């Protein structure tokens, strides 16, 4: 929970820093966003994506198990009930690079996707939704990664 509060503080400061800069989310990327995938922290990631800091929202859901038996494959999903969503992100806070996947959705699909990510250790996992009018909202969930098997 400590980490969560840290993140809220961080995102608030990023929001302040970016306010008034008029940065809009890019809507369609032709190429892979290297800077976003290399971001180590949330502020770096938000900067790379050209968005403002996220706020927690009950309109966004993150799905995943409470415990993963193996960090190599952890099922996670991001969904939202918000209208006009352009982009969904899945982040793993304690991975070397936070951003795992980024989905640009159209009106032809539901703003709800599931995939599987790698997790190096127990961590908060975030689903982030970015709307057409530049709202950045998130939900978080802690997923514990345990040791399984003989450990050899």
């Amino acid at each position, binding site marked *: 929970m400590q980490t*969560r509060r840290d993140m809220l503080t961080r995102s608030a400061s990023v929001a302040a820093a970016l306010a008034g800069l008029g940065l809009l989310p890019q809507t369609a990327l032709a190429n892979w966003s290297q800077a976003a995938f290399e971001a180590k922290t949330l502020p770096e990631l938000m900067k790379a994506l050209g968005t403002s800091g996220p706020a927690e929202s009950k309109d966004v859901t993150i799905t995943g*198990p*409470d*415990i993963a*038996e*193996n960090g*190599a494959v952890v099922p996670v999903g991001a969904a939202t009930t918000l209208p006009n969503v352009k982009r969904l992100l899945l982040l793993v806070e304690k991975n070397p690079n936070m951003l795992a996947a980024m989905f640009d959705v159209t009106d032809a699909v539901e703003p709800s996707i599931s995939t*599987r990510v790698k997790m190096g250790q127990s961590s908060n996992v975030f689903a982030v939704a970015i709307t057409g009018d530049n709202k950045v909202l998130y939900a978080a969930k802690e997923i514990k990664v345990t040791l399984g*098997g*003989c450990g050899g």
Partner: protein
Amino acid sequence: MRRLVITTALAVASTAGFAQKSTADGIAEYRAMLADGNPAELFEAKGEDLWKKKRGPKNASLEQCDLGKGPGVVKGAWVELPRWFADTKRVQDLESRLLTCMETLQGLNAAEIAKAPFGKGEQANMEALAAWISAESRGAKMNLPQGHAEERRMYELGKRAFFFRGGPMDFSCASCHGEDGKRIRLQDLPNLTKNPGDGVGFAAWPAYRVSSGEMWSMQRRLNDCYRQQRFPYPGYASDVTISLGVYMGVNAKGAESIAPAIKR
């Protein structure tokens, strides 16, 4: 914030027993999430192609391979293996039988394939073939034949191998798989000295291993068991591995096969 409150409440309410139960629930939830979308499917598709593809010096497919139910019969073959084969005068499991077919039908070198490292080249092909062939018996019940004297003898030898303790840690297969309801870390250990139930133990392999992202047939499963037992290296398709297959497979009689499954 809401989550925070719930978490705290849980922490207060939890006793050791309760915490353990929720750990088990968490793991069960994780496994259920993975079961929907098992990458073993990718290997099944590859295995079916390999079965039908003309390959090797003889440029032949495996479609005339006899897995025990007659040449070319794949459906239901998996749940009756290992079994006695009159042509080779051996009890063979799926992998050793595939080696026979690859050699006789396709002209490939079985000894070389058996010696090759897991997960590469022809060994990767073996895993894909095993995935598809086992999938063709999905939902069928384990029904290994014990009519032939050699099949009964291999059961007895397999039982002895299962209980054989050796190596610097004194482990046998039975050290971990001889009792009900045991775990290594959080991993449930089926009791393989009897029928452990539908889709458990022998009836769940081959399986996609999440930890390595690879398909493992029973040969590879046994190989890694012996590694963890701190034993020397069991030859691929050697008699000890086949006899263990007979022992576990016969014990599992009537259990529904879910192979290829997905495993940690």
